[in-house]
């Protein structure tokens, strides 16, 4: 009996070509089975056979329904996948458009830079990016350079740490990026060699470039031509040095001969003559200080300012500054007082320069304080907190510091001008209005000295009421020599 229904089963079950094919096949099989039964003569067990066929049909129907459901589910999944695929394709297209736009923006920005060279290389130094600034600076078009030249071709070989031999291109490139490799980035002057043989002094910022996965894809070299600026700096240095020499030499004569005349015991001067020559000497000394300040400022600007470190008792420095200013202050009717311990605090520093810084502050305070006013020098130990603030109480983790402040009851400094006080040659409007003499170098120098000692110089001032400068020096640090 099973042979009757068996042939229909594989065709109907295993190849459900569509959702309608299965019910049709099932119906055909059922009708065929019943027709066979009805066409035969009555048998001894016709009812049993019919039940068997019907059971098979029902089982087949159940299976087919399950497979139909599975097929429908698969179809739904297919449709879902198709939908998702379309969505992913759309997103991909949007992302691609955005990437293109971003790349276009970057390219247009890089191409818009004409005064700086922007050169990108692969990890080995082969040039991949060459902007119009690089074309202009080095005199070669992009097409002649990209993918064919190394960045080291444009660097003076003697600067790549290979004095005895030119080295291999890889060695030269390693030398070029060594600083950036060690510190993450590197900015310094390099000598670029142009296509027409010129040598340019270029300040180059070297940084590594990474891809989207964070892997290093190469290096960026952004250069600014400093040839003229550096030449101007050298000229300024030479000028200052020349002026210094040319002023110091005649001042030597003036002061030397003055000394001979004023100290001549065989031909003593009258009081009037002594007074006149005293004025000459005072002004010669003033010129000498100005020359010294100009030279010192040039040294600071050129980074050639060095300290001669030793243990310095700041109480001695403060008292010496008060003594230096005493005569001038008395002549102006300004009282000067000192609030300091007998000795200490002691800092590691340059005694001469610290004395100069303190003298500058006291001299300024006296100059800017009208007669009847008060200048106070205070010296005490304090503690610098981790956030940089300073207090007089010891705190855990605090750094011991010396606090040297000079306060006056003078004309004060307008709040809008206080930020420029430490700029060379800046003079506050109150100084100009009150015709206070000076060229605007004293605070620049004082700030440079303080910074070189690892300290800070702060100002608080109220116009018409007075000013306080506070010099904070670390007591646990050794300044750079």
């Amino acid at each position: 009996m099973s042979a009757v229904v068996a042939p229909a089963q594989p065709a109907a079950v295993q190849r459900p070509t569509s959702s309608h094919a299965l019910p049709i096949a099932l119906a055909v099989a059922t009708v065929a089975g019943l027709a066979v039964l009805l066409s035969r003569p009555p048998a001894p067990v016709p009812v049993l056979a019919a039940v068997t066929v019907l059971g098979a049909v029902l089982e087949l129907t159940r299976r087919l329904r399950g497979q139909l459901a599975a097929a429908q589910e698969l179809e739904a999944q297919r449709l879902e996948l198709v939908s998702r695929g379309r969505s992913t394709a759309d997103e991909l297209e949007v992302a691609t458009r955005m990437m293109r736009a971003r790349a276009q923006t970057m390219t247009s920005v890089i191409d818009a830079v004409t005064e700086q060279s922007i050169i990108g290389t692969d990890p080995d130094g082969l040039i991949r990016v060459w902007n119009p600034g690089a074309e202009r600076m080095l005199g070669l078009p992009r097409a002649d350079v990209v993918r064919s030249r190394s960045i080291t071709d444009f660097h003076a070989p003697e600067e790549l740490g290979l004095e005895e031999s030119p080295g291999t291109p890889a060695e030269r490139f390693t030398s070029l990026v060594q600083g950036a490799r060690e510190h993450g980035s590197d900015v310094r002057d390099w000598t670029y060699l142009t296509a027409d043989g010129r040598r340019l002094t270029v300040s180059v910022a070297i940084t590594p470039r990474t891809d989207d996965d964070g892997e290093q894809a190469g290096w960026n070299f952004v250069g600014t031509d400093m040839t003229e600026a550096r030449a101007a700096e050298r000229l300024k240095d030479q000028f200052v040095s020349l002026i210094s020499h040319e002023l110091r030499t005649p001042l030597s004569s003036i002061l030397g001969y003055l000394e001979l005349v004023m100290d001549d015991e065989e031909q003593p001067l009258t009081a009037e003559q002594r007074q006149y020559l005293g004025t000459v000497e005072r002004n010669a000394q003033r010129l000498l200080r100005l020359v010294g300040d100009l030279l010192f400022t040039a040294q600071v600007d050129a980074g050639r300012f060095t300290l001669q470190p030793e243990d310095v008792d700041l109480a001695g420095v403060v008292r010496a500054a008060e003594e230096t200013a005493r005569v001038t202050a008395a002549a102006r009717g300004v009282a000067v007082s000192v609030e300091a311990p007998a000795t200490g605090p002691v800092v590691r520093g340059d005694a001469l320069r610290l004395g100069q810084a303190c003298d500058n502050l006291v001299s300024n305070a006296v100059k800017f304080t009208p007669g009847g006013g008060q200048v106070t020098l205070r010296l005490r130990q304090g503690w610098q907190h981790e956030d940089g603030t300073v207090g007089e109480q010891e705190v855990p983790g605090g750094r011991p510091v010396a606090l040297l402040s000079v306060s006056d009851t003078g004309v004060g400094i307008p709040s809008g001008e206080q930020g420029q006080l430490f700029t060379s040659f800046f003079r506050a409007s109150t100084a100009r209005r009150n015709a206070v003499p000076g060229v605007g170098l004293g605070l620049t120098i004082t700030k440079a000295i303080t910074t070189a000692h690892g300290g800070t110089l702060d100002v608080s001032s109220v116009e018409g009421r007075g000013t306080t400068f506070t010099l904070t020096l670390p007591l646990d640090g050794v300044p750079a020599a």
Partner: protein
Amino acid sequence: MDRETGEAAARVLVADDEEDIRLLVTLAVRKAACTVVAAVADGPQALAAARAERPDLVVLDVSMPGATGLEVCAALREDPVTAGCRVLLLSAGASPDDVARGLAAGADAYLPKPFTVAALVGQVRSLAAAGSRA
């Protein structure tokens, strides 16, 4: 001859291209009870005078035409005839680097300009009293 000690006064050569300074140094040397054997205006003259006069002390300006004071000083040290004399350098350069360069060239002392006459007299006396380097 030193009036107080009876010893022969130290013989000093002065070299500076600035006439005013040259005279000032000469006066200071005399105040130090020393004898000025020659006062010259440039480096080559200073070398020639040193070899001819064999002074006890040479006071040299650093910035001089022909040869700088540093070059003259180095040449004096290389010549056995003048190697033992004392050298005092005068210069408008007053930085620690300037002083170090002067001492490295073989000078015994370095006095930045402008100097006081008293300081110069003190240096001359001190170097004259120290005698020859040899």
